[in-house]
Protein backbone atom coordinates (compact mmCIF):
# COMPACT_ATOMS: atom_id res chain seq x y z
CA UNK A 1 0.00 0.00 0.00
CA UNK A 2 1.33 3.39 -0.91
CA UNK A 3 1.64 6.13 1.61
CA UNK A 4 -0.54 9.02 0.44
CA UNK A 5 2.07 11.63 1.47
CA UNK A 6 4.74 9.84 -0.56
CA UNK A 7 2.49 9.69 -3.60
CA UNK A 8 1.71 13.35 -3.27
CA UNK A 9 5.40 14.18 -3.09
CA UNK A 10 6.04 11.99 -6.08
CA UNK A 11 3.32 13.76 -8.06
CA UNK A 12 4.81 17.12 -7.21
CA UNK A 13 8.26 15.98 -8.18
CA UNK A 14 7.04 14.66 -11.53
CA UNK A 15 5.02 17.80 -12.06
CA UNK A 16 8.05 19.99 -11.57
CA UNK A 17 10.27 17.83 -13.78
CA UNK A 18 10.43 17.43 -17.52
CA UNK A 19 9.44 13.77 -17.18
CA UNK A 20 6.13 12.93 -18.76
CA UNK A 21 5.63 9.45 -17.46
CA UNK A 22 6.95 7.55 -14.48
CA UNK A 23 6.36 3.93 -13.61
CA UNK A 24 7.39 2.45 -10.34
CA UNK A 25 7.05 -1.09 -9.08
CA UNK A 26 7.94 -2.23 -5.61
CA UNK A 27 6.70 -4.08 -2.60
CA UNK A 28 3.89 -1.58 -2.16
CA UNK A 29 2.48 -2.23 -5.59
CA UNK A 30 2.67 -0.68 -8.99
CA UNK A 31 2.28 3.01 -9.71
CA UNK A 32 2.26 4.90 -12.99
CA UNK A 33 2.18 8.66 -13.18
CA UNK A 34 1.54 10.27 -16.51
CA UNK A 35 1.42 13.99 -17.08
CA UNK A 36 -1.35 15.53 -19.03
CA UNK A 37 0.26 16.85 -22.18
CA UNK A 38 -1.43 19.56 -24.11
CA UNK A 39 0.56 19.78 -27.25
CA UNK A 40 -1.51 22.56 -28.67
CA UNK A 41 0.60 24.48 -31.11
CA UNK A 42 -0.91 27.86 -30.91
CA UNK A 43 -0.69 30.22 -33.78
CA UNK A 44 -1.98 33.66 -34.46
CA UNK A 45 -4.73 32.10 -36.49
CA UNK A 46 -7.64 31.11 -34.39
CA UNK A 47 -10.54 29.10 -35.56
CA UNK A 48 -13.83 30.86 -35.07
CA UNK A 49 -16.62 29.42 -33.01
CA UNK A 50 -18.99 29.64 -35.91
CA UNK A 51 -17.72 29.07 -39.37
CA UNK A 52 -18.52 30.46 -42.73
CA UNK A 53 -17.60 27.59 -44.97
CA UNK A 54 -17.06 29.80 -47.99
CA UNK A 55 -14.45 31.92 -46.34
CA UNK A 56 -12.06 29.76 -44.48
CA UNK A 57 -11.02 26.15 -44.66
CA UNK A 58 -11.37 25.29 -41.04
CA UNK A 59 -10.33 22.29 -39.08
CA UNK A 60 -12.38 22.32 -35.96
CA UNK A 61 -10.09 21.87 -33.05
CA UNK A 62 -11.71 19.65 -30.46
CA UNK A 63 -12.05 21.05 -27.01
CA UNK A 64 -9.24 19.58 -25.03
CA UNK A 65 -10.87 17.90 -22.11
CA UNK A 66 -8.05 15.50 -21.37
CA UNK A 67 -7.37 17.66 -18.41
CA UNK A 68 -10.65 16.88 -16.72
CA UNK A 69 -10.49 13.22 -17.55
CA UNK A 70 -7.09 12.89 -16.01
CA UNK A 71 -5.45 9.56 -16.63
CA UNK A 72 -6.94 7.02 -14.41
CA UNK A 73 -3.57 6.13 -12.93
CA UNK A 74 -3.24 9.61 -11.57
CA UNK A 75 -5.42 10.60 -8.72
CA UNK A 76 -7.24 13.83 -9.30
CA UNK A 77 -6.28 15.97 -6.39
CA UNK A 78 -8.53 18.90 -7.19
CA UNK A 79 -12.27 19.17 -6.92
CA UNK A 80 -13.01 22.35 -8.81
CA UNK A 81 -12.09 23.25 -12.37
CA UNK A 82 -12.12 26.75 -13.82
CA UNK A 83 -13.15 26.68 -17.47
CA UNK A 84 -12.65 29.32 -20.11
CA UNK A 85 -15.86 31.26 -20.78
CA UNK A 86 -14.68 32.17 -24.28
CA UNK A 87 -12.28 31.47 -27.09
CA UNK A 88 -9.16 33.54 -26.67
CA UNK A 89 -5.56 33.82 -25.60
CA UNK A 90 -4.73 32.66 -22.08
CA UNK A 91 -2.50 34.97 -20.04
CA UNK A 92 -1.16 34.06 -16.63
CA UNK A 93 0.38 37.49 -16.15
CA UNK A 94 -1.05 40.95 -16.58
CA UNK A 95 2.05 42.00 -18.53
CA UNK A 96 5.27 40.34 -19.65
CA UNK A 97 7.15 41.98 -16.77
CA UNK A 98 4.89 41.10 -13.89
CA UNK A 99 4.74 37.86 -11.93
CA UNK A 100 1.85 35.48 -12.67
CA UNK A 101 -1.47 36.07 -10.96
CA UNK A 102 -1.23 32.64 -9.37
CA UNK A 103 1.13 29.72 -9.15
CA UNK A 104 0.60 26.13 -8.11
CA UNK A 105 0.23 26.02 -4.36
CA UNK A 106 -1.20 29.51 -4.05
CA UNK A 107 -4.23 30.06 -1.91
CA UNK A 108 -7.04 31.86 -3.66
CA UNK A 109 -10.36 33.27 -2.64
CA UNK A 110 -13.56 33.37 -4.64
CA UNK A 111 -12.68 36.84 -5.96
CA UNK A 112 -9.00 36.26 -6.75
CA UNK A 113 -8.11 36.96 -10.36
CA UNK A 114 -6.29 33.90 -11.67
CA UNK A 115 -5.73 34.76 -15.33
CA UNK A 116 -6.83 36.82 -18.30
CA UNK A 117 -8.44 35.58 -21.51
CA UNK A 118 -8.12 37.98 -24.40
CA UNK A 119 -10.15 37.95 -27.60
CA UNK A 120 -10.22 40.79 -30.09
CA UNK A 121 -8.79 43.05 -27.41
CA UNK A 122 -11.49 42.26 -24.92
CA UNK A 123 -9.69 41.33 -21.73
CA UNK A 124 -11.57 38.97 -19.49
CA UNK A 125 -10.31 38.69 -15.94
CA UNK A 126 -11.12 35.22 -14.68
CA UNK A 127 -11.84 34.78 -10.99
CA UNK A 128 -11.25 31.65 -8.95
CA UNK A 129 -14.99 31.26 -8.15
CA UNK A 130 -14.15 29.26 -5.02
CA UNK A 131 -11.88 29.53 -2.02
CA UNK A 132 -9.06 27.03 -2.18
CA UNK A 133 -5.61 26.16 -3.43
CA UNK A 134 -4.36 26.09 -7.00
CA UNK A 135 -3.36 22.50 -7.62
CA UNK A 136 -2.78 22.52 -11.32
CA UNK A 137 -2.53 25.04 -14.14
CA UNK A 138 -3.98 23.30 -17.16
CA UNK A 139 -3.18 25.79 -19.93
CA UNK A 140 0.04 27.42 -21.02
CA UNK A 141 0.68 31.14 -20.86
CA UNK A 142 0.00 32.60 -24.30
CA UNK A 143 -1.90 29.52 -25.45
CA UNK A 144 -5.05 29.80 -27.49
CA UNK A 145 -7.85 28.29 -25.44
CA UNK A 146 -11.22 27.05 -26.55
CA UNK A 147 -14.60 27.74 -25.05
CA UNK A 148 -15.02 25.58 -21.95
CA UNK A 149 -11.40 24.45 -21.91
CA UNK A 150 -10.21 23.67 -18.36
CA UNK A 151 -7.74 26.28 -17.12
CA UNK A 152 -7.10 25.53 -13.46
CA UNK A 153 -7.63 22.71 -11.01
CA UNK A 154 -8.42 23.93 -7.51
CA UNK A 155 -8.67 22.03 -4.26
CA UNK A 156 -11.50 23.69 -2.40
CA UNK A 157 -10.80 24.92 1.06
Amino acid at each position, binding site marked *: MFNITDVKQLIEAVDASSIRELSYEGEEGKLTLRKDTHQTTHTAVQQPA*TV*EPTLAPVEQKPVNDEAVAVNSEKEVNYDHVIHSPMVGTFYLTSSPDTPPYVEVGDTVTEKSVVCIIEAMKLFNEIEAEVDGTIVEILAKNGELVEYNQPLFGIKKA
Partner: protein
Amino acid sequence: MVLSIRERLVRLLSQEQSGYVSGQWLSDELSCSRTAVWKHIKQLEEEGYTFDAVPNKGYRLVALPKHMTENTLRWNLSSDWLGQSIEHYPSIDSTQVRAHERARAGADEGLVISADQQLNGRGRMQRPFDSTDAKGVWLSFILRPQLAPTEAAKLTLVTAVALVDTFKQMINLDVKIKWPNDIYLNQKKIAGVLTEMEAEMDQIHYVIVGIGVNLNQRTSDFDPLLQDRVTSLFEETGETLDKQVFIQRLLETFEKWYTVFLTEGFVPIQKEWNRYVFKLNQPVYFLKQNERVKGLVQGLSAEGALVVVIEEHEHVKLYSSDIEWFRGE
Protein backbone atom coordinates in the same frame (compact mmCIF):
# COMPACT_ATOMS: atom_id res chain seq x y z
CA MET B 1 -25.54 66.86 -37.49
CA VAL B 2 -26.56 70.29 -36.39
CA LEU B 3 -24.17 72.12 -34.15
CA SER B 4 -25.52 74.54 -31.60
CA ILE B 5 -24.67 78.22 -31.99
CA ARG B 6 -22.28 77.94 -29.10
CA GLU B 7 -20.50 74.97 -30.61
CA ARG B 8 -20.17 76.84 -33.90
CA LEU B 9 -18.96 79.92 -32.07
CA VAL B 10 -16.22 77.93 -30.36
CA ARG B 11 -15.21 76.44 -33.68
CA LEU B 12 -15.07 79.78 -35.47
CA LEU B 13 -12.97 81.31 -32.73
CA SER B 14 -10.69 78.31 -32.41
CA GLN B 15 -9.91 78.40 -36.13
CA GLU B 16 -8.67 81.95 -35.72
CA GLN B 17 -6.40 81.62 -32.74
CA SER B 18 -3.74 84.04 -33.87
CA GLY B 19 -6.00 86.95 -34.63
CA TYR B 20 -9.19 88.61 -33.55
CA VAL B 21 -12.61 87.98 -35.03
CA SER B 22 -15.08 90.82 -35.15
CA GLY B 23 -18.43 90.56 -33.45
CA GLN B 24 -20.08 91.58 -36.70
CA TRP B 25 -18.44 88.77 -38.66
CA LEU B 26 -19.45 86.28 -35.98
CA SER B 27 -23.04 87.51 -36.00
CA ASP B 28 -23.13 87.16 -39.80
CA GLU B 29 -21.63 83.67 -39.72
CA LEU B 30 -23.95 82.50 -36.96
CA SER B 31 -27.01 84.37 -38.24
CA CYS B 32 -27.71 85.94 -34.90
CA SER B 33 -27.46 89.42 -33.43
CA ARG B 34 -24.24 90.84 -32.01
CA THR B 35 -25.93 90.98 -28.64
CA ALA B 36 -26.64 87.28 -28.91
CA VAL B 37 -22.99 86.64 -29.77
CA TRP B 38 -21.99 88.61 -26.69
CA LYS B 39 -24.39 86.59 -24.54
CA HIS B 40 -22.97 83.31 -25.85
CA ILE B 41 -19.46 84.55 -25.17
CA LYS B 42 -20.46 85.39 -21.60
CA GLN B 43 -21.96 81.94 -21.12
CA LEU B 44 -18.87 80.28 -22.50
CA GLU B 45 -16.79 82.33 -20.09
CA GLU B 46 -18.86 80.98 -17.26
CA GLU B 47 -17.99 77.50 -18.46
CA GLY B 48 -14.33 78.36 -18.24
CA TYR B 49 -13.47 79.58 -21.74
CA THR B 50 -11.23 82.62 -21.70
CA PHE B 51 -11.59 85.32 -24.36
CA ASP B 52 -9.71 88.44 -25.11
CA ALA B 53 -12.22 91.11 -26.18
CA VAL B 54 -10.78 94.29 -27.70
CA PRO B 55 -12.97 97.16 -28.93
CA ASN B 56 -12.87 97.58 -32.73
CA LYS B 57 -10.94 94.33 -33.11
CA GLY B 58 -13.28 91.73 -31.70
CA TYR B 59 -12.84 88.47 -29.87
CA ARG B 60 -9.98 86.07 -29.56
CA LEU B 61 -10.17 82.66 -27.85
CA VAL B 62 -7.36 82.51 -25.34
CA ALA B 63 -8.06 79.32 -23.44
CA LEU B 64 -10.44 76.42 -23.33
CA PRO B 65 -12.19 75.59 -20.10
CA LYS B 66 -9.90 74.08 -17.58
CA HIS B 67 -12.61 72.82 -15.35
CA MET B 68 -14.87 70.31 -16.85
CA THR B 69 -17.30 69.23 -14.19
CA GLU B 70 -19.98 66.62 -13.84
CA ASN B 71 -22.51 69.38 -14.35
CA THR B 72 -20.99 70.79 -17.49
CA LEU B 73 -20.65 67.28 -18.87
CA ARG B 74 -24.26 66.38 -18.24
CA TRP B 75 -25.51 69.69 -19.54
CA ASN B 76 -26.84 69.16 -23.07
CA LEU B 77 -26.10 65.44 -22.94
CA SER B 78 -28.97 63.80 -24.79
CA SER B 79 -28.20 60.15 -24.13
CA ASP B 80 -30.81 58.00 -22.40
CA TRP B 81 -28.58 56.28 -19.88
CA LEU B 82 -24.91 56.44 -20.83
CA GLY B 83 -23.31 59.24 -18.82
CA GLN B 84 -26.50 60.28 -17.09
CA SER B 85 -24.58 59.19 -14.09
CA ILE B 86 -21.04 60.53 -14.28
CA GLU B 87 -18.00 61.09 -12.10
CA HIS B 88 -15.43 63.55 -13.34
CA TYR B 89 -12.01 63.98 -11.76
CA PRO B 90 -9.46 66.71 -12.45
CA SER B 91 -6.86 64.05 -11.80
CA ILE B 92 -7.10 60.32 -11.16
CA ASP B 93 -4.82 57.28 -11.24
CA SER B 94 -6.87 55.52 -13.87
CA THR B 95 -10.50 55.90 -14.94
CA GLN B 96 -10.46 52.18 -15.76
CA VAL B 97 -9.45 51.13 -12.27
CA ARG B 98 -12.07 53.41 -10.71
CA ALA B 99 -14.76 52.05 -13.03
CA HIS B 100 -13.86 48.49 -11.98
CA GLU B 101 -14.21 49.49 -8.33
CA ARG B 102 -17.59 51.06 -8.97
CA ALA B 103 -18.81 48.08 -11.00
CA ARG B 104 -17.75 45.61 -8.33
CA ALA B 105 -19.62 47.71 -5.79
CA GLY B 106 -22.74 47.32 -7.92
CA ALA B 107 -22.87 50.54 -9.97
CA ASP B 108 -25.45 50.59 -12.73
CA GLU B 109 -24.86 50.27 -16.44
CA GLY B 110 -24.02 53.65 -17.92
CA LEU B 111 -21.86 55.13 -15.16
CA VAL B 112 -19.05 57.14 -16.76
CA ILE B 113 -15.75 57.91 -15.06
CA SER B 114 -13.84 60.67 -16.81
CA ALA B 115 -10.75 62.65 -15.96
CA ASP B 116 -8.80 65.63 -17.20
CA GLN B 117 -5.66 63.79 -16.37
CA GLN B 118 -4.72 60.20 -15.62
CA LEU B 119 -1.57 59.73 -13.59
CA ASN B 120 -1.34 56.02 -14.25
CA GLY B 121 -3.34 55.41 -17.39
CA ARG B 122 -3.50 51.80 -18.47
CA GLY B 123 -3.13 50.40 -21.94
CA ARG B 124 -3.28 46.84 -23.14
CA MET B 125 -1.38 44.36 -20.99
CA GLN B 126 -0.71 47.08 -18.41
CA ARG B 127 1.30 49.09 -20.88
CA PRO B 128 1.52 52.64 -19.65
CA PHE B 129 -0.78 54.89 -21.55
CA ASP B 130 0.16 58.54 -21.87
CA SER B 131 -2.90 60.41 -20.72
CA THR B 132 -1.50 63.06 -18.47
CA ASP B 133 -2.59 65.85 -20.75
CA ALA B 134 -5.87 67.64 -20.08
CA LYS B 135 -6.21 68.30 -23.81
CA GLY B 136 -7.16 64.69 -24.40
CA VAL B 137 -10.30 62.69 -23.60
CA TRP B 138 -9.91 59.97 -21.00
CA LEU B 139 -12.93 58.05 -19.83
CA SER B 140 -14.27 54.62 -18.90
CA PHE B 141 -17.81 53.39 -18.57
CA ILE B 142 -19.71 50.42 -17.22
CA LEU B 143 -21.87 48.12 -19.34
CA ARG B 144 -23.93 45.20 -18.16
CA PRO B 145 -25.08 43.58 -21.39
CA GLN B 146 -27.37 40.57 -21.49
CA LEU B 147 -25.03 38.74 -23.83
CA ALA B 148 -23.25 35.44 -23.79
CA PRO B 149 -19.66 36.10 -22.72
CA THR B 150 -18.52 34.67 -26.06
CA GLU B 151 -20.30 37.52 -27.85
CA ALA B 152 -18.80 40.24 -25.69
CA ALA B 153 -15.59 40.62 -27.69
CA LYS B 154 -17.65 42.24 -30.43
CA LEU B 155 -18.14 45.21 -28.12
CA THR B 156 -14.62 46.30 -29.02
CA LEU B 157 -15.78 46.65 -32.64
CA VAL B 158 -18.96 48.46 -31.58
CA THR B 159 -16.76 50.96 -29.73
CA ALA B 160 -14.59 51.49 -32.81
CA VAL B 161 -17.64 52.20 -34.95
CA ALA B 162 -18.98 54.65 -32.35
CA LEU B 163 -15.65 56.49 -32.24
CA VAL B 164 -15.46 56.87 -36.00
CA ASP B 165 -19.06 58.04 -36.13
CA THR B 166 -18.32 60.63 -33.43
CA PHE B 167 -15.32 61.99 -35.34
CA LYS B 168 -17.41 62.13 -38.50
CA GLN B 169 -20.12 64.14 -36.76
CA MET B 170 -17.68 66.68 -35.40
CA ILE B 171 -15.45 67.21 -38.40
CA ASN B 172 -15.04 65.77 -41.85
CA LEU B 173 -12.13 63.40 -41.50
CA ASP B 174 -10.75 60.34 -43.23
CA VAL B 175 -10.44 58.22 -40.09
CA LYS B 176 -9.73 54.49 -40.28
CA ILE B 177 -10.11 51.57 -37.90
CA LYS B 178 -7.09 49.39 -37.30
CA TRP B 179 -8.50 46.04 -36.29
CA PRO B 180 -10.08 45.66 -33.88
CA ASN B 181 -10.47 49.09 -32.34
CA ASP B 182 -7.63 51.58 -32.79
CA ILE B 183 -8.56 54.76 -34.63
CA TYR B 184 -6.07 56.10 -37.16
CA LEU B 185 -5.84 59.35 -39.02
CA ASN B 186 -3.17 59.84 -41.69
CA GLN B 187 -1.39 56.62 -40.62
CA LYS B 188 -1.13 57.74 -37.01
CA LYS B 189 -3.14 56.74 -33.98
CA ILE B 190 -5.55 59.28 -32.54
CA ALA B 191 -7.72 57.10 -30.32
CA GLY B 192 -7.46 53.80 -28.47
CA VAL B 193 -9.77 51.52 -26.56
CA LEU B 194 -9.27 49.09 -23.69
CA THR B 195 -12.20 46.77 -22.98
CA GLU B 196 -12.27 44.54 -19.94
CA MET B 197 -14.86 42.08 -18.75
CA GLU B 198 -15.75 40.12 -15.69
CA ALA B 199 -17.81 37.11 -16.52
CA GLU B 200 -18.64 33.56 -15.65
CA MET B 201 -19.30 30.81 -18.16
CA ASP B 202 -22.83 31.88 -18.92
CA GLN B 203 -23.12 35.39 -17.57
CA ILE B 204 -21.39 38.73 -17.89
CA HIS B 205 -21.02 40.54 -14.60
CA TYR B 206 -19.87 43.72 -16.25
CA VAL B 207 -17.79 45.18 -19.05
CA ILE B 208 -15.63 48.29 -18.74
CA VAL B 209 -14.93 50.21 -21.92
CA GLY B 210 -12.01 52.62 -21.61
CA ILE B 211 -11.47 55.21 -24.31
CA GLY B 212 -8.61 57.61 -24.91
CA VAL B 213 -8.75 60.27 -27.61
CA ASN B 214 -5.98 62.66 -28.56
CA LEU B 215 -8.01 65.74 -29.22
CA ASN B 216 -6.18 69.01 -28.80
CA GLN B 217 -2.63 68.04 -27.90
CA ARG B 218 0.34 69.37 -29.81
CA THR B 219 2.93 66.94 -31.12
CA SER B 220 5.33 68.29 -28.52
CA ASP B 221 2.92 67.16 -25.80
CA PHE B 222 3.55 63.51 -26.72
CA ASP B 223 6.35 61.31 -25.57
CA PRO B 224 9.18 61.80 -28.12
CA LEU B 225 9.26 58.05 -28.67
CA LEU B 226 5.66 58.08 -29.80
CA GLN B 227 5.65 61.22 -31.89
CA ASP B 228 5.93 59.43 -35.23
CA ARG B 229 3.14 57.01 -34.35
CA VAL B 230 0.65 59.18 -32.53
CA THR B 231 -1.17 62.32 -33.44
CA SER B 232 -4.04 64.49 -32.31
CA LEU B 233 -7.04 65.86 -34.06
CA PHE B 234 -5.61 69.35 -33.68
CA GLU B 235 -2.28 68.38 -35.29
CA GLU B 236 -4.01 66.86 -38.29
CA THR B 237 -6.70 69.47 -38.84
CA GLY B 238 -5.62 72.65 -37.09
CA GLU B 239 -8.97 72.73 -35.35
CA THR B 240 -9.51 72.79 -31.63
CA LEU B 241 -12.58 70.82 -30.73
CA ASP B 242 -14.57 71.39 -27.58
CA LYS B 243 -13.62 68.44 -25.43
CA GLN B 244 -16.85 68.46 -23.51
CA VAL B 245 -18.96 68.43 -26.66
CA PHE B 246 -16.81 65.61 -28.03
CA ILE B 247 -17.42 63.53 -24.90
CA GLN B 248 -21.15 64.16 -25.07
CA ARG B 249 -21.34 63.21 -28.73
CA LEU B 250 -19.22 60.13 -28.04
CA LEU B 251 -21.52 58.94 -25.25
CA GLU B 252 -24.65 59.54 -27.32
CA THR B 253 -23.13 57.84 -30.34
CA PHE B 254 -21.88 54.84 -28.40
CA GLU B 255 -25.31 54.42 -26.86
CA LYS B 256 -26.84 54.45 -30.34
CA TRP B 257 -24.52 51.77 -31.79
CA TYR B 258 -24.65 49.64 -28.65
CA THR B 259 -28.44 49.59 -28.93
CA VAL B 260 -28.18 48.68 -32.61
CA PHE B 261 -25.86 45.80 -31.70
CA LEU B 262 -28.13 44.49 -28.93
CA THR B 263 -31.33 44.75 -30.95
CA GLU B 264 -30.27 44.09 -34.54
CA GLY B 265 -27.16 42.02 -34.03
CA PHE B 266 -23.68 42.30 -35.43
CA VAL B 267 -24.44 42.72 -39.14
CA PRO B 268 -24.99 46.52 -39.07
CA ILE B 269 -21.81 46.92 -36.99
CA GLN B 270 -19.80 44.78 -39.40
CA LYS B 271 -21.13 46.77 -42.33
CA GLU B 272 -20.26 50.12 -40.79
CA TRP B 273 -16.85 48.92 -39.60
CA ASN B 274 -15.99 47.74 -43.10
CA ARG B 275 -16.38 51.29 -44.43
CA TYR B 276 -13.25 52.35 -42.52
CA VAL B 277 -10.74 49.53 -42.87
CA PHE B 278 -7.18 50.61 -42.03
CA LYS B 279 -4.66 49.19 -44.53
CA LEU B 280 -7.35 47.79 -46.81
CA ASN B 281 -5.66 45.56 -49.41
CA GLN B 282 -2.31 46.33 -47.84
CA PRO B 283 0.02 43.79 -46.27
CA VAL B 284 0.22 42.83 -42.62
CA TYR B 285 2.25 40.00 -41.09
CA PHE B 286 1.16 37.33 -38.67
CA LEU B 287 2.14 33.90 -37.38
CA LYS B 288 0.65 30.87 -39.05
CA GLN B 289 1.84 27.51 -37.79
CA ASN B 290 4.81 29.37 -36.32
CA GLU B 291 5.71 30.83 -39.67
CA ARG B 292 5.55 34.52 -40.43
CA VAL B 293 3.05 35.04 -43.21
CA LYS B 294 2.07 38.05 -45.23
CA GLY B 295 -1.61 38.73 -45.82
CA LEU B 296 -3.57 41.48 -47.46
CA VAL B 297 -6.22 43.08 -45.26
CA GLN B 298 -9.77 42.42 -46.50
CA GLY B 299 -11.98 43.60 -43.64
CA LEU B 300 -14.10 42.32 -40.82
CA SER B 301 -15.74 38.87 -40.80
CA ALA B 302 -19.20 38.13 -39.43
CA GLU B 303 -17.52 36.84 -36.25
CA GLY B 304 -15.49 40.00 -35.78
CA ALA B 305 -12.21 38.55 -37.02
CA LEU B 306 -9.84 40.35 -39.33
CA VAL B 307 -9.96 38.69 -42.74
CA VAL B 308 -6.71 38.65 -44.69
CA VAL B 309 -5.98 36.96 -47.97
CA ILE B 310 -2.72 35.09 -48.32
CA GLU B 311 -1.16 33.35 -51.30
CA GLU B 312 -3.41 31.47 -53.70
CA HIS B 313 -6.40 33.51 -52.62
CA GLU B 314 -6.78 31.69 -49.36
CA HIS B 315 -8.78 33.70 -46.85
CA VAL B 316 -7.66 33.54 -43.25
CA LYS B 317 -9.39 34.94 -40.21
CA LEU B 318 -7.26 36.48 -37.51
CA TYR B 319 -8.46 36.74 -33.93
CA SER B 320 -5.23 37.43 -32.13
CA SER B 321 -4.07 40.97 -31.69
CA ASP B 322 -0.54 39.81 -32.43
CA ILE B 323 -0.40 41.25 -35.91
CA GLU B 324 2.50 43.23 -37.32
CA TRP B 325 1.05 46.26 -38.98
CA PHE B 326 4.07 48.39 -39.70
CA ARG B 327 6.85 46.13 -40.92
CA GLY B 328 9.43 47.92 -42.99
CA GLU B 329 7.91 51.35 -42.55
